[in-house]
């Protein structure tokens, strides 16, 4: 899975491209952990290019959220597609991981 990284002064923006599934979830988890370890406490996942997410993918998002919270930071998601939104609503996880319409909205939230 291709994950583009954009380091900004106040946060790290990760942009995973492709399907976020059992096969690729661990890559994203590892990348979030690395980013946190490098001192970025706020991570924004830009999901514009993520086409599909299964239960492992959702697990990676929640796992990433936990990793950031443990260092006093936060993980936010921006621009999810219809399928991802459906999964989030179906599981009511949108209350925990609120989907933002733009990366800037996610960065501004606090």
């Amino acid at each position, binding site marked *: 899975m291709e994950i583009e990284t954009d380091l900004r002064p106040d946060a790290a923006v990760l942009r995973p491209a492709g399907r976020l599934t059992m096969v690729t979830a661990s890559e994203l988890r590892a990348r979030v952990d690395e980013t946190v370890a490098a001192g970025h406490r706020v991570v924004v996942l830009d999901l514009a290019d993520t086409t599909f997410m299964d239960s492992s993918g959702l*697990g990676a998002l929640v796992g990433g959220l936990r990793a950031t919270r443990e260092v006093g930071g936060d993980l936010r998601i921006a621009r999810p597609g219809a399928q991802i939104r459906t999964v989030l609503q179906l599981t009511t*996880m*949108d209350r925990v991981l609120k989907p933002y319409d733009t990366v800037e909205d996610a960065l501004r939230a606090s």
Partner: protein
Amino acid sequence: MGRLLLLRVVVALTILLGANYVVWRWLESVNWSAWWIAVPLVIAETYSFVDVALFGVTMWRARARPQPDAPAPGLTVDVFITTYNEPLDLVMRTAVAARDIRYPHRTWILDDGARPALAAAAQDAGVGYLVRSDDWQDRPRHAKAGNLNNALFQTDGEFLVVLDADQIPDPALLDRTLGHFDDPQVALVQTPQWFTNVPDADPLGSQAPLFYGPIQQGKDGWNAAFFCGSNAILRRDALMQLGLVGYVRATEAAVRDALRTSRAVLARARRRADDPRVAAAVDQVSVAARTSLAELDAGRPLGEVTYAFQRRVDEVSGGLVDTDLAAIRADLDAIGAWPVDTDTELGATVVDDAALARLADRELSPLGALASVQALVKAVDVDRGDEAQPVMPVATLSVTEDMATAMRLHALGWRTVYHHEVLAHGLAPEDLGTMITQRLRWAQGTMQVFLQENPLTVRGLRLWQRLMYFATMWSYLSGFAAIVYLAAPVIFLCFGVLPVTAWTWDFFARFLPFQIASQVLFLVAARGIRTWRGQQYSLALFPVWIKATWTAAANVWFGRPLGFAVTPKVRQDGGGSWRLVVPQLTAMAVLVVAAVVGIVRWGLGYAPWVGTSVNLVWVVYDLVVLSVIVQALRYRGYQGAERMD
């Protein structure tokens, strides 16, 4: 009875004399120093002997059936007229005649061309009109077999009549034939095909009096009368049984195939899996596939096996979701961020655990990430999604649906009847090109069946039925023998190379009795029918038979297309049809040159007179046989009173 006895004596004599000749040829008279022509010749002669012997076996129980009782009233019958691109007036003439068949029935035009004008004409004439349902879109159409199968599911008569668009039925068609179905084991009644637009000399060999007569009656004697695609009445029940058995077989084969090939695919997925969870999931699916295959081998029903497989995959999938869920719950606990709802009545908070469990949906399961597993799950099912209809009653195995259908009916224990009375009048091709296309198609279809469902090994047939099917397939191999029969005299006359050790008394004493006996056999079996035209074409169309065998083999073994063509029902005009018979014309020219060379060589004392005269007689015979091609080329179409336009 006296006639059958005579026939059997001649059959026995022919087989004995033939065996005597062929064994002597192999053991005593092959000229091994010229093996390159001697061996092909003795093989060709053996081929011909087997052909005659099979004909003898066919005639052994030839029977003329008595007229059956009049049919009981109240049977339901659908009459199908299959068409693709034939002219409207031709189709409608048949449709109106079919409508006017006396026994109560319904008539349907099965229009694979879906022509609005034909639909309107059908309505005006008060006959039904059927086209393919939407299910056939983007799926294999299976030509005429598909057309019939489509109609079978839109109609419901107990019996169905199949008519080609040009076969005008007699009003008495059903009154004369339905009585055969009083025997509940009878699945098919075939009547002859007879053509009205053929002159007495029949230059294109259109009438097949030997086939629609002694040969079909002979096959009928062994309960192996063939279905010939038109002018036949079938029992719907029998066809449906065929379709269901075929469906189960095809599905089981497809499921087995999917399970077997899944081994390699899953092994590849396993090697590529870095994640231990993926690897474990693939392993579990592999085990499920192996178990299912073992269950199929143990004879467990297909429905159960596929259902169990789907459930096992669901379990694997559920297991993966469960681990994901457990991890998500643990994470949520750790960060104290459970998605909570406030209950309006109690005012208390409700943890939404049930919502999380919705991840168990198959779509959201991590197993979906493995494309190989998804494809396998789809394939191990019983819906046969690649075909328009899961059940295909009329065999779609070959370009000619008829032979395979009849053979499968026989394999299931059904009986067939040959009813020797012309009850439909059709149109034969009127030019060489169309005729060759038609013969090629029949031959290709027969060879396809031979190569895919060999009657000698297919389950359920009786020995004699096997031989009856095999006999027809065998006869289409004659093209290869013909080449040898044309080449051998040329080689002797031009180069003096002898394929036999000598043309001596020993040779003639064995050869002539066999030849005479076979000719007498044909004479007695044919009961005065002219069979010469048929004999000519079985040799003269040798390039067609070879091409048919070749293309059918390439199709069956290597999946090459056949270059299939619907036989046109109207004359395809245009000169240059000699191009279609270049091999035959070349052969004739070579034979003439060889005869001249042979005479010169004999005159100069290079060649013995016995060998030369034997081979000259042979050349003359070949030329007389091939001369039918010249007649066919000169034929300008039927000029008689019955001509359509």
